[in-house]
């Protein structure tokens, strides 16, 4: 990003002493001050002319929305975003399903933020490994941790590691070109796939397994994934939840999409839905409408056209309730998954908080492909940051990290791995608001100038790390779109970080 402002800093450094009053933007002074400026210049600056230098860790929606709010509501704040991967946008690039391009429109807003001359992006920097949070705190007035949830919950049952068992997180990462999952090559030779969990990620995975290839081909799904899916034998996807229909975690838009999927038939067991009518009369509207859609699909005769479509469908999906995974049973070779054994459960209590308790009965479902989609999980990245490993979050109050002044958090690492982008947006605005309050009240001390990226750069350099800038990313972006065009798709993602770095001349 070659902004006028960066240029002016350089110009200012070269011409020390002369014409300083011409530089209106207080931010232009910051390098001078931090590099031991002549006292004459310091006197020209009142403290509030020095913009606070803020560092954000992670470039997903939380990172970008927090940055956006700070830049908008503080005229002098300068925000640097550090990202582990060379490329930005977190789960918008690596989570959101390829057949949901409209959700990715938020990238346009993020791009606008990144192009602001008070915002910089530094990719290819893993905080906690390449640089510590303490080091960042030395360089910035405030550090905001927005690094998301990079791991997943585990079932903790025997057989979880057998071949044929995958986490939804790895599967999603694979079809979306996440570097760490690019070699997953899932074995899709089983006709039946079981997905454990009733969340939206489970529906994403089911949709990718079942969608006609001609739909996927036009998306930014990776070429390799498409080739594997083209050979898939999967015909039936069973989505298994430990609680009942009234506790399903997916949302109605995603369910409707499943019901309307071309060449695919929904199989809902009427027994699961009879008598639900009364239970939903007083529940909040989203839950009521979601349940009504399931009830309608399960109990009502479809119209002629829909009935015809379902009758001729080559693939199907079903919802199974009140089953909690107990064990993955191995095939005779002892290596591959053959079936899943589940405890039949009943609900204790009612509504959203109902608990599943085993009845003592068990049931096996034969299947060679099992995807566990029971949620993501955040990890601690640095021993200097408090972490609640039970809840998997950084303990905080409105985004202020407890017991660590100057440290903040936003997004999934603040709240836990739930919520759509709008939830993450609101929560990021909330954290940014806390930072602004602390700046205003003086709780956040900005009287001393901080070295910002200049300081970080030298630390990184000594460790052989060379960050990727936003304009570097724009080159990668352009290359991906050009490759996509050749294949008639919006983009062909580069899945190898080395190749990305080569592309930008590293």
């Amino acid at each position, binding site marked *: 990003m070659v902004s006028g402002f960066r240029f002016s800093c350089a110009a200012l450094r070269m011409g020390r002493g002369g014409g300083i009053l011409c530089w209106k933007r207080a931010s232009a002074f910051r390098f001078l001050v931090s590099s031991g400026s002549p006292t004459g210049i310091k006197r020209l600056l009142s403290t*509030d002319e020095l913009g606070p230098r803020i560092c954000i860790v992670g470039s997903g929606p939380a990172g970008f*929305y927090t940055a956006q*709010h700070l830049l*908008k*509501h*503080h*005229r*002098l*704040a300068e925000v640097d975003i550090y990202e582990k991967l060379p490329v930005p946008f977190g789960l918008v690039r690596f989570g959101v399903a390829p057949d*949901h*391009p*409209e*959700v*990715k*429109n*938020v*990238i*346009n*807003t993020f*791009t*606008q933020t990144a*192009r602001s001359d008070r915002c910089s992006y530094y990719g290819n920097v893993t905080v906690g490994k390449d640089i510590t949070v303490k080091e960042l705190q030395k360089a910035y007035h405030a550090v905001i941790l927005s690094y998301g949830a990079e791991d997943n919950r585990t079932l903790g049952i025997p057989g979880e590691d057998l071949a044929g068992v995958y986490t939804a997180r790895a599967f999603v990462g694979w079809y979306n070109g996440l570097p760490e999952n690019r070699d997953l090559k899932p074995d899709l030779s089983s006709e039946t796939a079981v997905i454990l969990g009733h969340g939206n990620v489970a529906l994403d995975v089911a949709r990718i397994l079942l969608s006609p290839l001609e739909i996927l081909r036009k998306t930014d799904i990776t070429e390799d994934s498409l080739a594997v899916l083209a050979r898939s034998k999967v015909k039936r996807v069973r989505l298994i939840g430990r609680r009942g229909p009234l506790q399903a975690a997916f*949302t*109605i*838009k995603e369910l*409707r999409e499943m019901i309307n999927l071309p060449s695919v038939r929904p199989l809902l067991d009427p027994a699961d839905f009879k008598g639900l009518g009364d239970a939903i009369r007083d529940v909040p*509207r*989203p839950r009521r*409408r*979601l349940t009504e859609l399931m009830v309608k699909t399960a109990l009502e005769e479809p119209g002629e056209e829909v009935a015809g479509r379902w009758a001729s469908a080559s693939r199907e999906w079903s919802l199974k309730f009140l089953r909690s995974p107990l064990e993955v049973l191995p095939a005779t070779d002892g290596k591959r998954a053959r079936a899943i054994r589940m405890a039949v459960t009943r609900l204790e209590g009612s509504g959203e908080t109902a608990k599943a308790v085993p009845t003592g009965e068990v049931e096996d479902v034969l299947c060679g492909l099992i995807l566990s989609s029971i949620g993501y999980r955040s990890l601690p990245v640095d021993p200097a940051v408090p972490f609640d490993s039970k809840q998997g979050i950084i303990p905080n109050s409105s985004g202020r990290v407890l017991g660590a002044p100057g440290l903040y958090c936003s997004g999934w690492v603040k709240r836990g791995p739930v919520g*759509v*982008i*709008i939830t993450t*947006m*609101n*929560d990021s*605005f*909330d954290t940014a*608001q806390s930072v*602004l*309050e602390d*700046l*205003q009240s003086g709780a956040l001390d900005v009287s001393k100038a901080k070295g910002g990226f200049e300081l970080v750069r030298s630390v990184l350099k000594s460790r052989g790390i060379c960050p990727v800038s936003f304009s570097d990313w*724009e*080159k990668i*972006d*352009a290359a991906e*779109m050009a490759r996509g065009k050749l294949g008639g798709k*919006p983009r062909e993602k580069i899945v190898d970080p080395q190749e990305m770095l080569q592309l930008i001349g590293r």
Partner: protein
Amino acid sequence: MAASSAVPLLLRAAAASCHRLLSASRVAANRSPSRFFHASAPARLSSEDKVTVHFITRDGDKLTAQGKVGDSLLDVVVDNNLDIDGFGACEGTLACSTCHLIFEDHIFEKLDAITDEELDMLDLAYGLTETSRLGCQICLQKSMNNMVVRVPETVADVRQSIDIGKNP
């Protein structure tokens, strides 16, 4: 989205009138960030075609803007550069609910029937009311002249908004 902004601008011009429930293919052609810099609605508006809308923001401020018949309320916000935090994140593709607005009863009653898809998205909106709709799905009609729409509160809004060093 490094593509030159010329093409998306054309796309945007083509989409200036209200499209309810946009098709995925048009949606897929990402519009460029430059839309945010759109200064004002296209010229050549006769005063008869103009519809004035008052937005009550989360801070209780009133923003008044004009659009032409057929424009969506998202178009009005974008074309007039109205300052509403986070509005229109998915750019009118029914995938975000950030364009949620609350209508006056008498206007709400006369709005076009709501689709299942809009209802589905509205279910995820914050501060849902009996007269809530998604702004990107509502197209201006003459009868809406001078209507008042309210931006719902979000979590962060319970707190006093702060602007530091903002130009007056």
